[in-house]
């Protein structure tokens, strides 16, 4: 791999070829993230839900399809679904950059060595703050209301695999902790600094390792640096006529290395596969050396698959530097669709049949009635009487002619990709299967809107937080025969746990099936409640989420489908995989990282305390 220092200069100058510029173009997200992104909320600074006048909400900026449009029904929905009032604001506290706590541990040897190596680094407050957290509710709340007990003491931006190797060796030698950072979209507390850590903590930001190293069009694979983020990856490949097809909801910000380290899943996995299906080769730097396979063959039987140790390691074993992924030619056609079912149960049965016949389109998502209602609330003001008229006709057909009840029906959104013939054929088949379950087509526009909202929904939590509402999402995967019971039981459990803890306003508790597999499905839950008048909303929220997770596990669901374990789900890890399995992973950890350089404490607390001192003493 080419990792000359000249990469640090902005590329795209006239001298380079068009292809080079695509390969080496800098990321959409700047090195200093605070220049573009919110420091205490989701996404871009210019994009947020905002109140225009008394009764209307709008979405600001120009980045999204929803940007600029007014959503008159949203305020009413917030009042009805959450008991929130537009007059009751709970604004965030403002933290000045100079008030961000300074570094607490500085390792002089380490500092002089990285200066000597010429590694780009910063100890500025905002740089460190941005890399000290992910996006769980608790983290957002901490940003709005207070400060984290510990932040990284330094941010380092290596620009190549070789620099990472040097950095890891250096950290191992100097007794410094490294926490890899990709896109910062973790929702498991994985990026939080362990408060008990007494060594210097360095955030290893991979964002400047974002090149496409090569494409192999004959084998349809490509080699990428691990810091490349989803939107850059797809945009650049698209210019070359290819795609990866891996689209997690965090696509705009999350990085390839993060996908690998957390076993990510994308919404179009039915066509392209999840990260474990896409990954052909990975280079992984650990304190005891670099792990990689010797070839890029499509499948091997050479002992236990080490890729599966790396995927899901969540930063606790080492750092991903380069990845070879499958690439696909861009699909000729992309078509949206939607289906309306009398109720959620019929929808699930339809999805089950799609999975059974292995004909699910690139993406299919089934929303329950509450989410359908919510989607409705996000509708922009009708642009003219014709639209309103067409809506009325549709509503008449669905509710009167078909007899669907507006407070029971469920909606599925679909995304087809392929050649026009393939898509047409698939759509016909899907519609006929849906008809077996009483489903009717809801039109392409509703489907398109559904997917468009994917990226906007994440912004909604910040709006809620401004009005005493906390919300969070979590996911699971579950065998087909348990999907319906799990969805119902978990939703009700959330409501009951909230009520029993003194939440008096209505609780939003809703779910959707987002992935189908041969043997089961992935289910996403959203829940939110109004905490006005309650003393400790975050603690309450944690208790409710823990109860919900207990309920999920009791109902035969998994600990996580793709978010990971991180810190917030550690208590169930051992139960989920068995004691010997944890012991095996621990053994791998202590062999690969004997000094606990990667001391993020994800999956489990390291044996012998955060800095591994007991372990070291034992060795001495």
């Amino acid at each position, binding site marked *: 791999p080419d990792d000359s220092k000249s990469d640090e200069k902005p590329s795209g100058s006239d001298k380079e070829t068009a292809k080079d510029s695509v390969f080496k173009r800098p990321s959409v997200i700047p090195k200093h993230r605070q220049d573009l992104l919110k420091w205490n909320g989701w996404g871009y600074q210019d994009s947020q839900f905002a109140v225009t006048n008394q009764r209307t909400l709008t979405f600001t900026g120009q980045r999204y399809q929803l940007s600029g449009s007014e959503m008159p029904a949203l305020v009413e929905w917030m009042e009805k679904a959450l008991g929130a009032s537009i007059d009751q604001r709970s604004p965030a506290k403002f933290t000045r950059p100079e008030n961000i706590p300074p570094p607490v541990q500085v390792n002089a040897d380490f500092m002089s060595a990285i200066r000597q190596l010429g590694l780009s680094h910063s100890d500025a407050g905002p740089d460190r703050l941005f890399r000290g957290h992910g996006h769980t509710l608790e983290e957002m709340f901490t940003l709005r209301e207070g400060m984290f007990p510990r932040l990284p003491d330094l941010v380092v931006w290596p620009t190549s695999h070789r620099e990472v190797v040097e950095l890891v060796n250096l950290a191992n030698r100097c007794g410094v902790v490294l926490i890899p950072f990709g896109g910062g979209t973790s929702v498991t507390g994985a990026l939080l600094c362990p408060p008990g850590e007494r060594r210097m903590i360095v955030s290893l930001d991979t964002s400047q390792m974002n090149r496409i190293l090569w494409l192999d069009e004959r084998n349809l694979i490509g080699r990428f640096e691990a810091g490349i983020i989803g939107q850059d990856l797809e945009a650049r490949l698209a210019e070359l006529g290819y795609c990866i097809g891996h689209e997690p909801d965090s696509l705009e910000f999350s990085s390839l290395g993060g996908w690998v380290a957390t076993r990510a899943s994308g919404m179009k996995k039915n066509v392209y596969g999840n990260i474990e299906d896409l990954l052909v080769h990975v280079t992984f730097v650990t304190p005891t050396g670099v792990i990689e396979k010797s070839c890029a063959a499509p499948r091997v039987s050479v002992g236990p698959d080490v890729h599966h140790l790396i995927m899901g390691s969540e930063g606790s074993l080492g750092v991903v530097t380069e990845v070879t992924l499958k690439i696909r030619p861009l699909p000729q056609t992309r078509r949206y669709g939607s289906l309306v079912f009398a109720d959620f149960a019929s929808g699930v049965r339809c999805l089950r049949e799609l999975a059974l016949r292995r004909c699910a389109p690139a993406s299919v998502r089934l929303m329950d009635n509450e989410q359908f209602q919510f989607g409705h609330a996000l509708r922009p003001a009708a642009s003219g009487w014709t639209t309103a008229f067409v809506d009325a006709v549709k509503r008449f057909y669905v509710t009167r002619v078909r007899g669907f009840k507006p407070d029971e029906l469920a909606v599925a959104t679909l995304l087809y990709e392929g050649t026009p013939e393939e898509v047409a054929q698939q759509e016909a088949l899907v519609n006929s299967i849906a008809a077996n379950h009483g489903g009717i087509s809801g039109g392409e526009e509703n489907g398109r809107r559904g997917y468009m909202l994917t990226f906007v929904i994440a912004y909604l939590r910040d709006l809620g937080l401004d009005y005493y509402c906390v919300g969070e999402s979590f996911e699971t995967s579950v065998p087909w025969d348990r999907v319906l019971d799990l969805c*119902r039981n978990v939703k009700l459990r959330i409501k*009951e746990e909230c009520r029993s803890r003194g939440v008096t306003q209505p609780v939003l508790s809703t779910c959707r099936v987002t992935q189908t597999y041969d043997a089961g499905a992935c289910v996403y839950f959203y829940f939110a409640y109004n905490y006005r008048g309650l003393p400790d909303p975050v603690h309450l929220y944690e208790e409710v989420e823990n109860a919900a997770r207990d309920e999920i*596990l*009791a109902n035969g669901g998994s600990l996580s489908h793709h978010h990971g374990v991180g810190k917030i789900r550690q208590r169930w890890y051992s139960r989920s995989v068995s004691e010997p399995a944890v012991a095996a992973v621990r053994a791998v950890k202590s062999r690969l990282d004997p000094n606990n350089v990667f001391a993020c404490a994800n999956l489990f607390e390291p044996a012998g305390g955060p800095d591994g001192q007991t372990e070291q003493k034992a060795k001495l």
Partner: protein
Amino acid sequence: MFNGSFSDTWQANEKTGRPRKGVFEDLVDERRQRGDLGWVLRTRRSVPSPAFCAAGTSAASAAIKSSKSPADINRDVLSSDRLTYGLREISLETGRPMPELMSEAGAILDEMSHCLSMFAIRSFGYAVAKVMKRIYRGVFVNTEGITQLRKACSEYPVVLMPMHRSYADFLLLSLVCYDYDLPLPAIASAMDFMGMQLIGSILRNCGAFFIRRSFATDRVYWLTFVEYVKTHVRDGLHPVEFFIEGTRSRTGKSLYPKTGMLGAILESWFMCEVPDVYLVPVSISYDRTLEQKLYAYELLGVPKPKESTSGLLKARALLDEDFGSVHFYFDQPISLRKFATEYGGVDRSVHSLAPKVKAQLTDAETRMLKAMAHHVVSRHCLNAVVSPFCLLAALLLADGRACRPVPLTELAADLEWLRLRLADVGSLASLDWPAQLSTEAVIAEQCRLHSDLVTLLTKDQAVALVTAPDSDLEARAAQRLQLSSYRNHIMCHVIELALYDAATLKSSDGGLGAAAVFDTLRHLLHREFPTISDAEEMPDMADALPRLRNFARACLRPSLAGCSQVCSVLLEQPELAAQSSERHIAMAAQKRAFANLVSNPSLWDDWESVSLDLLVNAVHGLHRLRILTKSRGAAATGDGGSSCDFERLRRLHLILDPLTRTQPDGVHEVPSTRSRL
């Protein structure tokens, strides 16, 4: 729970205009004031249906309905995954073809299923209301319990778990549900009724479904039954009602709980088919039980008359009698989920690995099931309203007091004392004590109501038992068993003290130590008194009043006498254990007891040792203590044959001996009224 005995400060319920008494209100009064026709024709408003069904994710049926016809229910049962899977398993094992098994299940279902119809409920309710007005002074219901039940019905599936003391239980309970606009229950009933012409189908139309008494080995039946019950729980439209005691208690004591039905219900939560289940213990107390006399003869071994319509018609003489009042106490609904959390050790996720259709309770779940069953029985006892006659019966029976007439003033003083002491201890919170009457007047009133058992000799101002002639041993015993059934109502409130007292009695421990004696008695009596706590430790009750201890001891003595009788008969006829079933041993003991009574009718406490129920429980106790052990062959065939550890049996007999004597070594004196008050 409410504290202190409620005084019957009569007042009208502001909303309904019904007369209130403490936490209760009376249903019957309104029926007396107004006609019944309007009542049965009225529209029931806002009958709650559980929100979990409306959550839109009901797995049971495609179209979520607020009601489901009995035929729909049966169809869902037959098409359920669980039943189909189970039948296929049987088919593969036995080679019987599926269609045959399916039609067998269909036939079982036809025999079992209810046919609940509002029309039937209304028409039958009309008749029941008429009878109710005639024989009962009042039917009292705790309104708070109804409010809680209503709320429970609007959240999760509800299971009504009433005490079982009379056939009237489920009729009245359905009537209460109808009256309070609650969803009508589907009632698990024994097959006995099904044979009754007309009545069988009336009950079916009123929501009764019929289950066979024993079907442990019939797998098709078991599968169909469980799925039928679970379908009701999953749908949540009709509360399932069943009797945890399995059958009517003939003795006034709680019966050892049966877990089969509760197991099926709990399974639907263990397998996560429902988010939660509410169990609602319902205590029912009758001032006088309709079947009182029949029960006494059944306990003596005179066969129960088969339920028949003509039998029912003959029983109409009862219509002219006064049966006092009935009290329903609806306990606070128990959330199964919360109970499991507190109980601990149940992890539903262990079912995650096998498909849902392969449901089977784990050991931890079975333990919880048993604990739950016992908990419900304890709640029954704790909440049951106690009539003054129960105290009166207990006092008359204690220490052979009533072998001659007891002066009214003496009895009144004792009754007053007992009432206050039990209220002090807090164990008897629900005494139905008419506040405005003097104790003497209360006694007189009770004597009128129970004139078949006790009389007030107006001339002597004394209370005497009504006894049969000495020659008719059976009739005498029957009288005695009837009276003791009232004392038994309060046994759950004194049993702990009685056991403590027995264990700490110096002469009884035979060098074993109090804790060991306590433990032995606890196991020996575990069936006789299912409310005895499972705690290993002996409670410390040293500060109980000696007089209360004496009273508790006297209450327990007949049970211990029964146990002693069983021990004696086994020691005298060593071959009995090896050859006979539990019932045969009990009958031999009964024979021995009768023989003793013929020679010495003044053996006061032995008059209860002729109750087969008591004796069978004693044999069970010996099994529990592993003094009797079922031999291998016998376990398979199901009847008879145990090996007996005679050495331990003798030792047990020695422990029991002093405890069954009326004046045990004179350690404690017999309660004397004058000295205390």
